[in-house]
């Protein structure tokens, strides 16, 4: 992968490294480094989100703009349906 400019690109990069690890192209050490790198990128995004929350403004992150303009809840939240909700059983 040439450049990571997007959240989707980052995800694809992580999944690619996983595939390479399973096929045996990469060592565990190399894969570990990429994992840490991805985590650090995510932590920066988190920090930006927190900052926006503290200012009480909508987050405007260019790294996430290609997906959904960097705002919070553009994509609908889909909770898992396999497990029962807490109130349904009792």
């Amino acid at each position: 992968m040439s450049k990571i400019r997007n959240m989707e690109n980052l995800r694809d990069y992580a999944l690619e490294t996983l595939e390479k690890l399973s096929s045996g192209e990469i060592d565990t050490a190399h894969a570990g480094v990429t994992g840490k790198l991805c985590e650090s990128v995510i932590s920066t995004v988190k920090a930006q989100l927190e900052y926006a929350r503290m200012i009480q403004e909508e987050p405007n992150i260019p790294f996430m703009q290609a997906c959904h303009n960097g705002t919070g809840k553009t994509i609908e939240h889909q909770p898992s349906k396999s497990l029962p909700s807490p109130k349904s059983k009792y």
Partner: protein
Amino acid sequence: MKDNDKIVENQYDMVEDRYGIMRQRVTQKVVGVCKHHGYAKEEDLVDVTIKKTGKIVKRCKFCERDKFENKKVYTEDWKREKESLSDYYVRRTLVHGTKNALPMQDYPEILVEAKRAVIKLKRQTEIIKQPIKECSKHGKLYREDVIKAGKERSGNQKYKCKKCMKELHAKHYELHKVKVKLAHEQYKNKNKTQVAKSKAESYKKNKHKYLARENERKRIYDREATKLLKDRCIKKLLVKRTGLSMSDVPQELIETMRAVQLLKRGIKSHSLKKKIEDKKNVKD
């Protein structure tokens, strides 16, 4: 006692001895002598076992009968006093088993009343500890294992086994499932306030049970969520040690974090496999 005297006169003839005193003339074989009734044959004696030693001793039949009757009267009187908790009984319990005790009459009335209250309490606790009923299936039943089931004509409370009744109700429910459900629904619609009250009361009583059950369910839910990497689990990871709330996290970030977590797990599993292979090679 006059009847006994007559029997003695009939059995033995009275004869004047050389000193001029009237004595019994022994006509038949005599086995023993009674203090009150004179000579006794085998027919007049009874076998009696002594409590301490366990020996069997022959004693006069008429004396033993008198003793037994006296004992009966004494025990009946004592029972009556025990039940009514008379002053004599309470004072005797105060004196019994104490060294250098005062005479019974010297104890003050306040102390006697206090002792009486203590005895009453003890009796009530003993009644509670005793089993109420015996079930053929489940043995002795105490207050917890029993349901109230009406009253007798005399006014005493009747009881039934709780487990047996549960089994019976379960059988009935299986046979008439539709009927029972309909009846329940009708009752709920008619008495809404009463049902709500009873529910609230039962929740208050068994709150700790409900909470424990819910905690277990939550634990199972969380374990499964971590296995499958559900949204909830990843959101928790992202929110940890930050000022963010769960709703602030965008879906795209969750999916990338999921990919990273998958990578981490892959690395862990590969490293474990390598370690195991290395160990095997060392052994070979």
